[in-house]
């Protein structure tokens, strides 16, 4: 089942790229489609942040734990213009440290 998702979504993502290079540009001339297409990545990434940080590991509940503190550290690192890997592993290290305490 996981393999189907990996390969199906993988090929699908390739076709989405190819479609962009192949279809006439006037598809994007529709302002609603252009706006929605710009907003979708922002909405999805924000939702993924919220779910990754707040969803309880056991399922349908929210919980504030070391992950939320780690996200705070990530915000500070981003404000300080730290590179991607520093942000990601900095957050991981903070969560790990908090759990040791």
């Amino acid at each position, binding site marked *: 089942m996981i393999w189907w998702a990996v390969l*199906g979504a993988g090929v699908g993502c390739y076709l989405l790229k190819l479609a*962009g290079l192949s279809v006439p540009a006037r598809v994007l001339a529709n302002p609603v489609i252009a706006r929605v297409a710009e907003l979708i990545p922002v909405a*999805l990434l924000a939702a993924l942040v919220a779910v990754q940080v707040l969803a309880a590991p056991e399922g349908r509940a929210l919980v504030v734990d070391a992950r939320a503190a780690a996200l705070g550290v990530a915000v500070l690192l981003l404000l300080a213009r730290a590179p991607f890997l520093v942000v990601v592993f900095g957050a991981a290290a903070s969560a790990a440290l908090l759990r040791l305490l």
Partner: protein
Amino acid sequence: MEQQTRRTVVRDSLGVAIATGTYGLSFGAVAVTSGLDVWQTCALSLVMFTGASQFALAGVLGSGGTPLAGALAALLLGTRNTLYGLRMAPLLGYRGWRRAAAAHVLIDESTAMAVTRPDRELARTGFLTTGVTIFVLWNLTTLAGAVAGEQLGDPRDLGLDAAVGAAFLALLWPRLTTPLLRVVALLAALVAAGAVTVTPAGVPVLVAAGVAVLVGVLKR
């Protein structure tokens, strides 16, 4: 401003590509701790090759979502590459097999390093240098991260569960350029968090995509 030459374009593209290519390390480590095996992790980097979608699929699986929900989130995030393609097609001017090959390396960074070039030659140079270098590095670092991730023991002890949220935030951060985008991000996060309590894992992210559609349609 510095005159753009082939040399400066290659230099800038390599800088971006080397910095980005190493993210694969974090993707590889996160993916194997989310329930993908090393082969599946490497297949994602080879076939899907678009970082945010790959992280999304791993993230949804890791938080207990179904493979289908993970695949849908990955595909929705992949739609932005379609947008890049629409903008890049006249600039790059590829046809036939060249277009089919170029499509595979059509990602955030290769678009960014090509879209500002004054002519087709330099646009292609920026696009290919960035895209191909990232592809090679991304796949090598994915494998390294995945193999290392498998040796690491409990991912929670290392805070790797917290790393995923930070990775999404770091991908989101540079996109929050206007007040509208910030409002949409906040709304989507709230809707997704609310949906966590009432829908199966994986679904909240898809529900939040509805925020984008709604705002896009309602705003004039």
